[in-house]
């Protein structure tokens, strides 16, 4: 009490009653918000804004380093070129297909994994670890390892098939099988990302709600759909946003598994961008492709964000 009255004495006469420096500790909500967002904003500006501006600028240029001619302003030429580029359409279609298959796939598998991992195992760490290992395996190596798993002769998959009495499949000789192999790999690799986020969400659901639902007579399934799922929605949306964005950028796994083969049947838009920028040094066209991919991602993100907003 004594100390309290002392401070009060010292500060009387000051209009707001606080020492000047405390104002930095208690800025108004809006100022505080701005301050808190500042580090993120600075980093983003530093690392992203300039490169992205360059990217967009380049996309309006005729900048193919192998052409030997200096860059010229091209307007929308790179974009119109794209419309007539069959490889663009094929890779875009492949990308969309991969997204449509692997995102829900990873969601379901990830959800199942998270629910399973949330069980009260006596020893928790092997389960948690096996959730994390796929995520921790470097992407490009995951592709190589699975390419090997699906290898027609030395692969585990065919080995198991043969042991079960089936004919082995030459996975990479067929566009469909190769596509399937790639999707399976992506789902395996990314479901743990989903599972991690969902698991974290699961841990925040109060137990008492399940108790109430138990008493209300809801079975496990019902509880899952009426309580778990709705309360997981924010976590799921977060996971979906980023899984979708990365799915649209799928590169390493098809690159290491099939190189887009057979033919170009499993090539993705990101591979095509990589090819144009790194191999063909056609920076203008590559940038334009990247901008299109960005637009695609943003479109999807906007849909998801609307979903979050609807929740509020």
């Amino acid at each position, binding site marked *: 009490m004594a100390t309290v009255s002392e401070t009060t004495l010292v500060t009387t006469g000051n209009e707001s009653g606080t020492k000047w420096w405390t104002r930095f500790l208690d800025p108004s909500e809006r100022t505080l918000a701005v301050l808190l967002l500042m580090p993120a904003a600075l980093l983003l500006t530093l690392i992203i804004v300039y490169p992205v501006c360059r990217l967009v600028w380049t996309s309006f240029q005729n900048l193919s380093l192998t052409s030997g001619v200096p860059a010229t302003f091209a307007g929308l030429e790179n974009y119109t070129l794209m419309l007539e580029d069959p490889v663009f359409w094929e890779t875009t279609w492949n990308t969309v297909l991969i997204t449509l298959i692997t995102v829900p796939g990873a969601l379901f598998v990830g959800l199942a994994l998270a629910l399973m991992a949330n069980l009260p195992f006596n020893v928790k760490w092997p389960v948690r670890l096996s959730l994390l290992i796929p995520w921790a395996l470097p992407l490009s190596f995951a592709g190589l390892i699975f390419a090997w798993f699906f290898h027609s002769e030395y692969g585990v998959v065919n080995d198991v098939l043969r042991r079960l009495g089936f004919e082995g499949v030459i996975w990479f000789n067929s566009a469909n099988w190769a596509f399937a192999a790639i999707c399976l790999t992506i789902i395996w690799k990314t479901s743990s990302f989903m599972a991690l986020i969902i698991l974290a969400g699961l841990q925040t659901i*109060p137990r*008492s*709600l399940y*108790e*109430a*639902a*138990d*008493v*209300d*007579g*809801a*079975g496990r399934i*019902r509880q899952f759909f*009426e*309580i778990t799922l*709705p*309360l997981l929605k924010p976590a799921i949306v977060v996971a979906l946003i980023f899984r979708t964005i990365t799915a649209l950028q799928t590169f390493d796994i098809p690159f290491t598994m099939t190189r887009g083969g057979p033919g170009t049947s499993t090539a993705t838009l990101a591979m095509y961008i990589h090819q144009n920028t790194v191999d063909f040094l056609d920076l203008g066209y590559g940038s334009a492709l990247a901008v299109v991919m960005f637009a695609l991602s943003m479109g999807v993100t906007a849909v998801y964000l609307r979903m979050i907003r609807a929740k509020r």
Partner: protein
Amino acid sequence: MSSVSFRKLEKTYGALKIVKGIDLEIADREFVVLVGPSGCGKSTTLRMLAGLESISGGEIRIGERVVNKLPPRERDIAMVFQDYALYPHKTVFENMAFSLKVRGIPSAEIKPRISQAAEMLGITQLLDRKPSQLSGGQRQRVAMGRAIVRRPQVFLFDEPLSNLDAKLRGQVRTEIKRLHQAIGTTIIYVTHDQVEAMTLADRIVILKGGEIEQVGTPDEVYNSPASVFVGGFIGSPAMNFAKGTIHSGRVTFDGGASLPLQSHSAGKSAGLEGRDVIVGIRPEHFVPAGEGHALSGRVQVVEPLGSDTLIHFMLGSSMLTARVAPEMRPSTGETLSIGVDPSRIHLFDAATERALV
């Protein structure tokens, strides 16, 4: 078909024994109130009955069925949780409708049931809100509503009215009573409120440290408390206790004052001759001086309640509380002379603290 029985019911958390062998038969349609100090295991017992807590020992039956292993859903029980446990993502209406929907009741029937319950609890205008937009008392009423719409075999209420104001509480209490009379469901009700316990209960169960201290009708537990604990626990303000010794049909307090043991037959008081006892006197059993055998003591605190006045005074080394008419306002320090009806005195053994018949 919805009697409930506990047989040697036990609950341990690790090494800690929380519920220590409860034996209790609750008849169909009975209204049982569970009281006991905080932490004595009331919620735990309800939760075991609801199937939310595993049973460490003994057995619970609902009707004829042993339900030890039955999941909550199959026990046909409704429960109001002490901490509400409302679904945060559902509106009040959806919260109340959930159990009905789960049980496949057509929505044509759900609506009227809910509006009826909402009406009764005064939350009709809140039906579209989410729990986060409600005040504490409003949440509690929603939790009540959620149970009421169910019409189960057994209702469990865990302090359902603790956050309501007196007026609303009285109202809802009356509604619960009416509900019970109308549909006759077995009810087990945990409360800290004396009035609720006394008015609602067919029988009151007093728990202490995980064991049953006494079971009886409100009258029994009020008028014949089995122990000092029950005497002190039931009744508000609490019963006064003072040490004394019995000599030739009188009880003498350590301060020197004494009272005749009028009500006890000569034979019995003979058996008590010379024993150390604890004397229990309820605050409301003090009468104006002159009307009974008088005691006198120095007034310590006077608390006017409006409807009554509480006078705290010293008798020897014990502080006693008397509830008297509101007009009576002695001042602190004054010596008060106040009467006691000897037939209203309770005697407990000083060592065991059990009632002496």
